[in-house]
């Protein structure tokens, strides 16, 4: 039976202004028709009444690590990451993100492909969770694994190997390929940060970096794109961003230091920037409480202003920006990323909302074809907010109902904490 979702105020995520008194007719989990209430007179359908508050598309977090637990962190020397614990944490974080309105996600790097395992469990057991596009383990260059226990990555050398690895990995069930394009070959990261802090802002990066070659990246993109999959590139220094964009990746993750040439390349290639602001901000604001070495916090503070001004410049130039939390620190929430785009970067609330919805859909690859906007043929994934996010972006925290595939999937609850907790690992 069809479902009719009645709304009062609806923002469809295409960039169009809010609609009033519209409804959505849902068939098989997809939006069949959307329009003024009068169009649906006499429709035979079960009704979901969402006529209070404001309706927006379900959010997309295109850079998460649900299964990330500190023990399995690639910078730790854990001998045997606890895979069962990764799965349990993954299921719990997935449920929490759904309650925070995230109806689709991209998991960009998980040791032992535990995200692919999680996806299978979520589907089999029908657990509450966002739709998940999973990258599984990452690819990096020879020497790119941080230590013997860095189960997050596998190393390749040369375009042929990159192509073979990509094919094998897609065969393992990956929805996208995550490249660790640049890696810092420093024994002691804190020491590198201290050296960087001692230099003026415009000095060359003092780190020992290694990177994948354009040919290696291109081979990966070629194989992934053949089968409708996307490629996400973790990059830190500017030269790495350029390499990755020239290699044809779909998204740049972090992209901390952008110059004009980077922005031009983004515009030429149509790639999406996933700035993952909230992880840096969380480190900056909670680092002391989390017991991070002070140099990490200090480095984040030093970089913050230039980071957000570069991001603003990119946005103004027309670079597509999507939200990704990179939630790997306990306590982080999805909302932070969207709010920072307004509060720190200065985007208009509508632009932040588009970053949280429409802009991330392409990054999800095949999984994203039907995500991100409320239009016919798209997933009936939406969020009912108790307040207008275009008037105040912080209303995205005030979620009343989360609908996924035309069904009520989550109702945040202050008593249980669901929808108001942070990531945990």
């Amino acid at each position, binding site marked *: 039976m069809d479902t009719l979702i009645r709304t009062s105020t609806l923002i469809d995520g295409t960039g169009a202004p809010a609609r009033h008194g519209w409804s959505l007719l849902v068939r098989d989990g997809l939006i069949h028709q959307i329009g003024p209430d009068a169009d649906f007179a006499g429709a035979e359908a079960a009704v979901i009444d969402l006529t209070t508050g404001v309706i927006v598309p379900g959010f997309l977090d295109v850079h998460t690590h649900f299964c990330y637990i500190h023990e399995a962190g690639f910078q730790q020397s854990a001998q045997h990451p*606890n895979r*069962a*614990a990764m799965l*349990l*944490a993954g*299921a719990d974080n997935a449920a929490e993100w759904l309650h925070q309105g995230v109806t689709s996600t991209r998991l960009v790097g998980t040791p032992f492909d535990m995200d692919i*395992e999680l996806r299978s*469990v979520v589907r*089999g057991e029908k657990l509450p969770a966002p739709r998940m596009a999973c990258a599984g383990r990452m690819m990096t260059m020879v020497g790119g694994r941080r230590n013997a226990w860095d189960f997050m990555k596998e190393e390749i050398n040369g375009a042929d190997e990159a192509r073979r690895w990509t094919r094998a990995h897609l065969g393992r069930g990956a929805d996208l390929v995550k490249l660790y394009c640049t890696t810092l070959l420093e024994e002691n990261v804190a020491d590198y940060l201290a050296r960087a802090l001692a230099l003026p802002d415009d000095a060359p990066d003092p780190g020992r970096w290694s990177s994948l070659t354009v040919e290696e990246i291109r081979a990966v993109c070629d194989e992934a794109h053949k089968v409708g999959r996307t490629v996400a590139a973790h990059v830190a220094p500017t030269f790495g961003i350029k390499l990755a964009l020239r290699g044809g990746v779909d998204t740049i993750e972090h992209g901390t230091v952008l110059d004009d040439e980077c922005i031009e390349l983004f515009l030429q290639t149509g790639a999406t920037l996933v700035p993952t602001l909230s992880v840096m901000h969380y480190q900056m604001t909670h680092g002391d409480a989390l017991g991070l070495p002070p140099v990490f916090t200090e480095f984040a503070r030093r970089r913050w202003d230039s980071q957000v001004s570069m991001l603003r410049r990119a946005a103004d130039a027309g670079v597509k920006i999507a939200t990704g939390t990179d939630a790997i620190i306990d306590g982080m929430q999805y909302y932070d990323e969207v709010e920072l785009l307004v509060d720190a970067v200065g985007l208009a609330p509508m632009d932040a909302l588009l970053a949280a919805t429409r802009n991330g859909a392409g990054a999800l690859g095949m999984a994203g074809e039907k995500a991100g906007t409320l239009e016919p043929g798209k997933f009936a994934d939406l969020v009912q907010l108790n307040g207008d996010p275009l008037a105040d972006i912080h209303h995205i925290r005030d979620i009343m109902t989360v609908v996924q595939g035309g069904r009520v999937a989550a109702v945040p609850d202050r008593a249980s904490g669901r929808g108001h907790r942070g990531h945990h690992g």
Partner: protein
Amino acid sequence: MAETAVLAAGFIDLTPEGVNIHCGEALLLDGGRIAGFVAERDLPDEITRIAFPDAFCLPGLVDTAFLPGLIVSETGARPETYGQSAWAAKGAADRWLSSGVTTAASMGGAERLDFDLSRCVLARKLSGPRIVPALSPLVPTGAAKFHRLYGVREVSGRDDARRVARELIKQGADRIVVYADVPLEFHPDPFETSRHRLAFSADELAEIVMQAAQAGLFVHAQAISSKAIDVCITAGVRSMGCAFGLSEAHLPLLAQKGIALAPNLALGATISELGPGAGFPAGAVSMVAAQRIRPDLLLQAHEAGVQIICGTNTAFLAGDVARECLELHRAGLGPADVLRAATGHAAHALRPSPDFGAFRRGWAADMVITRRNPLEHVEGIGEVHAVVSGGEVIRG
């Protein structure tokens, strides 16, 4: 100074000498450990009381054959991947604990699943019993026709046995599980299935037992044929499961060498009830259904001084220690002996010096609270009112 006192209509304290029922007394707990009994009237006012005035309290149950790798999930799905297996085991751990099992000794699982689960329980990331991991169960080379998720390792020869045992111990196994004999293939005729079995030699098993003993660990063997039981007795394993081929001649040897017997009766009973529709090879179902320890022999074993212990060894929802207790009772064991099989005897079959399985000072404050007195109604073990694990009330 004790922090908490548990009060109940009666505490069933099973000592080697007999059964003490503490009435009018409270059990003091301190830091998740038992501090001793004290008369209720002597309890200080400021102590926190956990009262079950109409219920009976016995030590937390011990399952010596928890099978996490292949647990059927709550939706009835049989796991095919590690993730599905881990998720189903998560549900099972919670169910086992809710049914009163506060310690579960694993029969092993693929890719360190039981070890990882045990750490999740310790870190309170998972609601479940204390899990005693075995990592990979060992089988004779060529006999690995097990589901991949059992995680079995093939062993051949004494040197190989030594190496594998050393590796398991190094990797964190708290017990070693061996399948002493395994059918080459399952056959529709159960007796054909059990006729041709690859089996460990006594030398191989003895080497595993020795390596385990040096690390303070016990070896548990699943053995089907009479010959495999002979080999297990010779090698000196600590406990033996299934033991379909048990005969009168084995009984004095088992008693003399202190080898406990886990007849896994609930497994056969459950498989018989579920039948081939549960997705097992027809030969396996009919073999398990057709071959069980004769009830009279089990009773004889008990009377000959063989310790009987509870082990579910089942991947089904229905399998639990309460069911095993009931089957042991049906086989002729008295209620107190059934309770010993599910608590103290089982604990001593897992560790040389256990700190769980009885109301002893300094031992883990694990208990199961039942509405009916299980000494009068054995089926009352399955009617769990509350569970206390490490001093924490889990349910009830």
